[in-house]
């Protein structure tokens, strides 16, 4: 059994989807964090990137396992627990691997080493050669390795037993649709029997009575009159760590105080690192008898499936994240579906909702959105009516769908893409290196370099940093150019006037059936504009209702003049000139 087999048919990576150029615009970092909440922003996105695929079989395998997980809550819970166990298990496994020398220290060694140390101390006082040997001997970290080996092996054995027991109990007797999950259950059963896990658990309980570990220790530094260090003595080895505050700390925190100073960070670089090893060797030497006894008992407890168990990490992370995401959608009443794969259209989503909002805010208005194969959508409508959200939703659906996740939609199908490409309106560059137009041109050049006929473009209000006539013309050229190459695209814009030109160009290309105009709807009411957040197929409207948006922020002629008059500025609110301004007659 290998964890990769849960993520990819036969455990082998097939295909991919490059979403790196769209990650920021489509807010994929935030979406990835929503899926994989235990990871940092960058880590979550990187993890998702590694799983993206355009291979249909891979997508179907993941959908099948996710379906089983949603039907078997106990297995999902086990996987959540296992994730935590595996993280710790990895540390322990590394700890055991890195300290194998600790296996070689015998009880006889311990006795001989004590004698050697006494002789060496004497030699040090007699010759430089003796001092050198002492340095060399101090660099021998066998006892540190013995301490760590025993510590990690004890923890590893306990975690392994817990993990196998959990997997076995949650898969036993269950009927999964997924062959991969069935194989996982069989493997857990075999490990449980072979490694006598029940006996191991009992043996560990017995050992815990004898040994409770080491959490702290103290060393006396002996000084001469000139404050030179002249000796070191092992003062104590403790099970409990020292408390943080020292005697200089202000009283009243309620925390127990100990020692003179509060706890400081131990230097983790340079000599500090080497000194750690030296100290730990001395601690190991101090408790060497107990350690060798414990180690011998531990190595008799088998953990034969440990390496395979560790390979489950990525699969667990993906499936627990994706299942929790789907469960969240379901519990909030959002529609949920496993998208099917098609070559007939670029995508077709019915009653689709923006994923993040469906998980966290009020449920959004569902929308239908279809983009024909190699076609283009012109999306227009009032400001702040939800066009950008719709565009982001389409991009995120492809991202989630090509991860193998379920989608917040009644029905969904899509043709897997190889690249998601986005061009959003640029603001001023942070370093002032280039103009807004310059930035958009650079970006467009970059996207063209990466484009293939299996890519998809999302444009959000591009080319607004030039005159409307020129900007609109460039948008027409862009969409026609992409349609000519068979690359699908979705353009959100306020250049409503380009629709006739666009139709003309697509007609000339013989692709008029591939062009669609969608409008985000709204309605005029007595209280002003009411957003419906619903798309409909129609030619672009004559207005973007910008006044309604700016008025909501208090940017109207009346409000501005009144506010400034109130503050004592000479605005002459009653002057007839303002009427001319209001009527646009200036």
């Amino acid at each position, binding site marked *: 059994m290998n964890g990769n087999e849960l993520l990819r048919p036969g455990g082998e990576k097939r295909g991919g989807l490059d979403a790196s150029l769209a990650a920021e615009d489509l807010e994929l970092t935030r979406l990835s964090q929503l899926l994989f909440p235990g990871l940092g922003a960058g880590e979550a996105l990187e993890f998702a990137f590694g799983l993206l695929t355009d291979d249909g079989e891979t997508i179907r395998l993941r959908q099948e396992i996710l379906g089983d997980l949603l039907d078997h809550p106990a297995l999902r819970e086990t996987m959540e627990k296992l994730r935590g166990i595996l993280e710790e298990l990895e540390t322990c496994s590394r700890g055991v691997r890195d300290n194998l020398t600790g296996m070689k220290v015998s009880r006889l060694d311990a006795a001989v080493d004590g004698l050697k140390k006494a002789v060496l101390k004497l030699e040090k006082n007699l010759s430089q050669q003796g001092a050198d040997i002492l340095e060399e001997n101090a660099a021998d970290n066998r006892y540190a390795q013995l301490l760590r080996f025993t510590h990690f092996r004890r923890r590893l054995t306990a975690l392994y037993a817990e993990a196998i027991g959990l997997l076995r109990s949650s898969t036993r007797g269950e009927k999964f649709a997924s062959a991969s999950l069935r194989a996982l259950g069989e493997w857990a059963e075999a490990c449980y029997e072979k490694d006598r896990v029940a006996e191991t658990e009992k043996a560990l309980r017995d050992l815990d009575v004898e040994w409770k570990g080491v959490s702290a220790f103290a060393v006396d530094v002996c000084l001469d009159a000139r404050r030179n260090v002249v000796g070191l003595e092992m003062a104590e080895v403790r099970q409990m760590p020292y408390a943080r505050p020292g005697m200089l700390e202000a009283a009243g925190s309620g925390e127990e105080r100990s020692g003179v100073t509060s706890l400081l960070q131990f230097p983790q670089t340079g000599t500090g690192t080497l000194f750690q090893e030296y100290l730990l060797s001395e601690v190991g030497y101090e408790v060497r008898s107990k350690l060798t006894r414990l180690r011998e008992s531990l190595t008799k407890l088998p953990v034969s499936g440990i390496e395979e168990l560790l390979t489950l990490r990525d699969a667990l992370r993906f499936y627990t994240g994706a299942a929790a995401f789907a469960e969240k959608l379901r519990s909030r009443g959002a529609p949920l579906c496993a998208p099917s794969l098609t070559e007939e259209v670029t995508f077709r989503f019915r009653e689709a909702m923006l994923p993040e909002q469906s998980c966290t805010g009020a449920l959004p208005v569902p929308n239908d959105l279809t983009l024909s194969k190699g076609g283009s959508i012109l999306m227009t409508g009032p400001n702040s009516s939800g066009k950008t959200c719709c565009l982001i939703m389409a991009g995120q659906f492809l991202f989630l769908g090509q991860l193998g996740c379920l989608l917040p939609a009644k029905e969904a199908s899509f043709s897997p893409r190889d690249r998601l490409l986005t061009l959003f309106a640029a603001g001023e560059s942070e370093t002032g290196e280039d103009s807004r137009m310059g930035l958009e041109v650079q970006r467009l050049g970059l996207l063209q370099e990466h484009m293939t006929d299996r890519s998809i473009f999302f444009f959000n209000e591009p080319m607004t940093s030039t005159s409307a006539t*020129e900007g609109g013309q460039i948008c027409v050229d862009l969409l026609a*150019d992409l349609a000519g190459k068979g690359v699908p695209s979705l353009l959100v814009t306020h250049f409503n006037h380009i629709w006739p030109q666009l139709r003309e160009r697509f007609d000339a290309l013989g692709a008029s059936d591939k062009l669609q105009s969608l409008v985000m709807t709204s309605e005029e009411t007595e209280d002003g504009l009411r957003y419906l957040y619903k798309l409909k197929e129609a030619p672009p409207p004559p207005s973007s209702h910008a006044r309604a*948006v700016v008025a909501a922020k208090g940017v109207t002629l009346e409000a501005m003049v009144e506010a400034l008059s109130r503050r004592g500025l000479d605005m002459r609110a009653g002057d007839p000139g303002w009427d001319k*301004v209001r009527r646009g007659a200036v």
Partner: protein
Amino acid sequence: MACLLYPAGKGPAASPFPAQTIEDLQLGRLAKAMSPSDYYRLTPEELCALFTGDEEVLRHRQAVFRDVLRFPELESAMEKLLDSLDGWESRGGSRRGGADAFAVGFSLDEFTWLDGYLKKIDAAWREFDRIPVESAGFRALQGLLNELRNSKRYQDAASDFKELCPGFSAPARMRLGYNLDNELKPSRLKLLAMEPPEEGTRSKSAQKRKMMLTQRAVETDAMLLQRVSAQASQDINTFVIRETAALRGLRKELIVCLAVRKLTRSWEEAGLPACFPELRPPEEKAFRAKGLFDPLLLISDKELVVSNDAELRQGGELLILTGANQGGKTVFLLSMGLGQWLAQLGFPAPAAEAAVSPAENILTIFAPNGQRYGRKGLLAEEAGRIASAMENLTAGSMVLFNEPLTSTGPEETKAISAEVIAVCMAAGARGVWVTHVYELASHRASLEEALPWGSRLGSLRIVLEEVGGETRFTYRVERGEPKGYSHAEDALRRGGIHLSDVPAARA
């Protein structure tokens, strides 16, 4: 005690500087570039706190900065004083880094350091005293150093501290406790106890196992003892810092003076001028500059820095600037904004000659970033910024608009822009409005006629050259009517964008 940036009896004004202006004018980059070093770093907020329209304060600062530019030896004197002040500042944590990490043994002796510090004060006093400064600010500083150097407190400091720390005399045994983390690494340590020398021999039960004593263990333990002893002596340092609080007020002022020197030096090295602007009365709303340039271009290492002359008509003028994409509109806007800002810090302006009336504030509206605000709605974000600017707008404001309100239909952009311009104009604000909506400039006369008070409107345009049938940028700006074309396709071509079916389809 502050004396370099404010005359006696004056201090910082309470009014906050708009955060949006800091972002739009890229004051963070400018502040970083003029900071004397990474360590002595100025933040844009610190600089903006110096923004003032108080003529007395500005004249005081101009005199101080003139001294800075006139007497190069002041730079070294200020650096030395800053260095010694910095000693007190960083003493707060009482931990020594750097070379101390390699020291053998550990030190509880604060006196060596204190002596060194006092010597630096003495040296700074001597250095300042021999420079014939003319400004009231530097004369006050000379007076302050003189008073400090000859004060009883200064004279008595060493002996005071000697009395306060006699306790760390001769510990014979220091017990260090270590906590282990989950991977069994010593992660924290603390000083648990210090024992005096023992009298007689230890009983057998009190004896402990001796660990191997290696050279490395000796060195590392000395370093660890240094750290824990530094922690223990923190109280002493707290006392010291309190005693010297008055001196530390000078630190930022010295950094600002060094920053002015660094800024003007960078302009000199690029062959660009600097001048202290003539201060004009606020009601004149003057902004006149010859050879004005954008100092941010130097930070970006641009080889070509084109200067322009700029002038706002007396009584206030809002200039509408149009022209080709990438032709230098934003750079011109920034030149004016930064010129005004620097003048109101009392700094030299990036120009050969300048005359400036202080503005009550500088308000900016730059196009927001689609990536950052796309989902929220660019227009809504921009409208929020305009509303916020309007709350602070006064007849004395300078307003700088850079391609605002483009995130809607072209007709709506024009209509709303015209209203905002009308309000700014009627309110009497001056400034610049960069746009591709040419009608805003070409129809300005009718707006002026409708609202015949407040500021006036002017039209600026980008100058292009025709050479051999090709259009070239000059990055110059001139007064004149808009040309009506933004050369967007040229921008595409320069960016290497070729839309394959364009010619055929258009044909």
